Structures are given as structure tokens and as C-alpha cells.
């Protein structure tokens, strides 16, 4: 029996449906759009998640943020605490697709889709996010770094749903997500980079750097991170971090850019992301989204 559709209002009912073979749809900005593009067929049986109130919303917790899986990109982009303390997430959420994509598309969907070019993944990886996962069999917590297993592939089982994303706070950190884009809207990252830095006096005490659309998954570059620690994070240090990240990148050639161009631009976007994160850690104003603010920056 195919073509079943259910639209529950509780998570428990949704989990029963996924255990029974229904596949989840939230905003449909990847799942349904992909069927229109002929990438895949719509799953036979669907469970819609958009009427489950407990899956949506942003809450501040003792450790940071708890973001419900069906929270929209627009909700993230407009959230004051995210602007102030998790700024790179706002940089990313505010440039996904179009206004329609941002209102309908969800954070959980963005992560479950596991695109190597997903905007929100780099900032969340750098902040050390975990996803809370549920099924009728129980719950588990997966570090985001372990969620992504390849392009479009995750560690989720077919009956599991992401229910929330936990994002620790890094006190005093400055963060920045930058993408190279051929236009500022309706774009997918040609390459992207996230930097999250914490300063101690004039020197970098902690650094996290992630690259986007430069490897089979969005991933952190520990070599560039450890290099940056102990430096002043200035132009030369940022450039060297960019060079190290570009060296570690494993990009592909596709319709948007060649491998060589991506690798060359990796150095540029990582440098800009570090510059932006340092500036924000120092309390300087870098407009959101940083991609537009830093466009043309050296």
C-alpha cells in the first residue's frame, strides 16, 4: 500500500509513522524540489512534520541553545541571541535560498539533507553542536561531526527523526560564516568557510574553522585551527590559516566551479571568515550576512 500521508500534531505520532515506513517531510525545499527536478521520486509514504509544535522553536538553555528541528531559517536569521552570540549561524541562515526557502525550509531538514554545501552546517560544527534523535525505540544524541557520513548521507536510521539541535555557547567568541557567491540571493555556496575564535588579550586562545562545498561533507580543518591559536589573528595569520585550509580541502569540479577555482577561493573565504570572526570578537561591527559585508575585502 503506497501513497500514504499523515500529518500528526505530536512527535510520538510522527515516530510511529516513521517506524511504519513513512519518510519525513518538513518544508519540502529539498525533498519536493528534488522530485520536481527529477533527482528522485517522492517517497511512497510521507509523514509531514510541520504541524508538530514541539519540534519548532529556539530556547536558551544553561549551556547554549536548543533549536527545534523544524525551526525555519527565517526564525534563526531573525533571532536576537543568535545575532549576538552565534553570529555565524545568522550569517548562514539569512542567505539560504530565497525568502520563500527561508520561511519554509527547516534547520533539521538542512542537516538531514547533508549537502556538502549546506550553509548552516559549518557554523554548527564549529560551535560543537549535537543533534537529538528519536525513534520509537528510544533516543540518542549525535555529535554533528558524526552525523555527516558523505554527500547526502547521514548516520540516521530510516526510522529516526532529528528532533532538536543543541548548540553550546562559547563565551566571548566571535564567529563568522562567509560564502563565495556569484550573486547574493538564490545561491548555493560555490565555496564557504566558518571561523569561530576566542581571544585572550591580543592573542587567539581557541579557533574553529570549517569549510563548505570543499569536501564530501562540511568539515573542520584542525591544521588551520591549531595554527591560528597563539597568533594575533591578524591579516598574515588569517592568510596562512586560509592557505592551510585550502591545502586540506578536497573539492570537486561541477557545474558551479572547477576544482582548481574552488581550492584557490578556499584560501580567500577562510581568510575573510577569520577576519570577520576576529573583528566580531573584538566587538567591531561586521554586518549580517557577512558574505555581503566582506565582499571585496582582502
Amino acid at each position: 500500500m503506497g501513497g500514504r500521508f499523515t500529518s500528526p500534531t505530536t512527535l510520538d505520532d510522527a515516530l510511529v509513522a516513521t517506524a511504519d515506513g513513512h519518510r519525513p517531510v518538513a518544508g519540502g525545499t529539498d525533498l519536493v524540489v528534488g522530485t520536481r527536478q527529477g533527482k528522485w521520486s517522492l517517497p511512497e509514504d510521507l509523514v509531514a512534520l510541520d504541524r508538530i509544535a514541539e519540534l519548532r522553536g529556539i530556547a536558551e538553555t544553561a549551556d547554549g541553545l536548543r533549536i527545534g528541528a523544524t525551526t525555519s531559517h527565517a526564525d534563526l536569521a531573525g533571532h536576537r541571541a543568535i545575532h549576538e552570540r552565534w553570529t555565524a549561524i545568522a550569517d548562514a541562515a539569512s542567505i539560504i535560498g530565497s525568502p520563500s526557502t527561508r520561511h519554509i525550509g527547516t534547520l533539521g531538514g538542512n542537516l538531514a539533507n547533508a549537502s556538502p554545501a549546506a550553509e548552516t552546517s559549518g557554523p554548527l560544527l564549529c560551535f560543537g553542536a549535537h543533534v537529538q534523535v528519536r525513534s520509537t525505540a528510544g533516543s540518542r544524541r549525535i555529535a554533528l561531526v558524526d552525523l555527516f557520513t558523505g554527500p547526502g548521507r547521514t548516520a540516521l536510521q530510516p526510522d529516526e527523526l532529528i528532533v532538536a539541535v543543541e548548540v553550546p555557547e562559547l563565551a566571548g567568541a566571535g564567529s563568522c560564516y562567509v560564502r563565495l557567491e556569484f550573486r547574493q540571493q538564490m545561491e548555493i555556496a560555490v565555496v564557504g568557510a566558518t571561523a569561530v575564535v576566542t581571544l585572550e588579550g591580543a592573542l587567539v586562545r581557541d579557533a574553529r574553522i570549517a569549510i563548505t562545498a570543499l569536501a564530501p561533507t562540511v568539515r573542520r580543518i584542525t591544521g588551520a585551527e591549531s595554527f591560528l591559536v597563539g597568533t594575533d589573528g591578524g591579516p598574515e595569520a588569517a592568510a596562512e590559516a586560509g592557505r592551510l585550509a585550502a591545502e586540506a580541502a578536497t573539492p570537486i569540479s561541477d557545474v558551479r566551479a572547477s576544482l582548481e577555482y574552488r581550492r584557490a577561493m578556499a584560501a580567500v573565504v577562510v581568510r575573510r571568515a577569520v577576519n570577520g570572526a576576529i573583528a566580531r570578537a573584538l566587538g567591531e561591527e561586521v554586518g549580517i550576512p557577512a558574505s555581503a559585508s566582506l565582499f571585496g575585502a582582502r
Partner: protein
Amino acid sequence: MRYPVTLHVNGTSYPVELEAGRTLLSVLRGELGLTGSKEGCDDSECGACMVLLDGQPVNSCSYLALQAADRQITTVEGLASGTELHPLQQAFLEHGGVQCGFCTPGMLISATALLTSNPDPTEDEIRAGLSGNLCRCTGYVGIVAAVQAAAAELAGAD
């Protein structure tokens, strides 16, 4: 398998029976006869199918109709009051915002959403607000001017 649901479009309730895979656009045009929303690319690039769902813009070509059940849907047919055009529609006419007209319904819907959330947008904000809508006549200058004029008109009406 077909599911009986009610779609609320432009203030009218329509009982329909739908299969899970039906898109909102196909139901608006095929079942309800509301052909103002257009099918352009059919995969969320061009915005000709844009409608409001509970006041927010959505590409109806790539949205499941069953997910729109019991929500408030606004199409371009819902903008005018009787024979009186919405200020945005009037401004599109007066400022050359319509060339071939195919993108116009989606442009009007996105502009409506923009002016609801931001009644006094800058030109950059207008361009960002309409970024999910393509005009293949490239009539963007007239479209932006029309949105600016409508914003001024609506501000004056308050």
C-alpha cells in the same frame, strides 16, 4: 490513496480530495481553476508560482497541497478588492512593472509579503525580497519602482 481536506484560498473554503504527491500549484490551477499562479520552472527557481501560506511566501509548485490544508492561502486573485486593484497591482501598471506578465503574479505575491514585514524597504531590500522571482523580460527596474511607489502609497493611506 486520496485524502479529503479543505483548502482555504483567498477567503473561500474548498473541499478537495487529494493524493499525497499533488503540489499546491497543480491543485490551485487544476482543481480550483485559480490560474493566476503560474508554472514556470516547476522546481522553485523562478517564483511564478508564489503564493502566501499563512502570510509567508511559498513556491506552490514544490509544496505538497496536503501540507497547505487548513492554512490560509493567498493567490494573486486574492489581492484586489472587487474591481479595485491592490496598490501594488496599480503601481505595477503605472510604473511599467508588467511586460509579458508571466512573472507578475509571483512578483506581486512576494512584494505583498515584503511590504507586510517591511513597509518602508530600501531598494536593496526590495531586490532581496523579490530574489526568489525571475523576470525573463528583465523588467526589474520598473518592478522595483512599482514596489517603491506602492510602499509610499500604502504608507500614505495609514
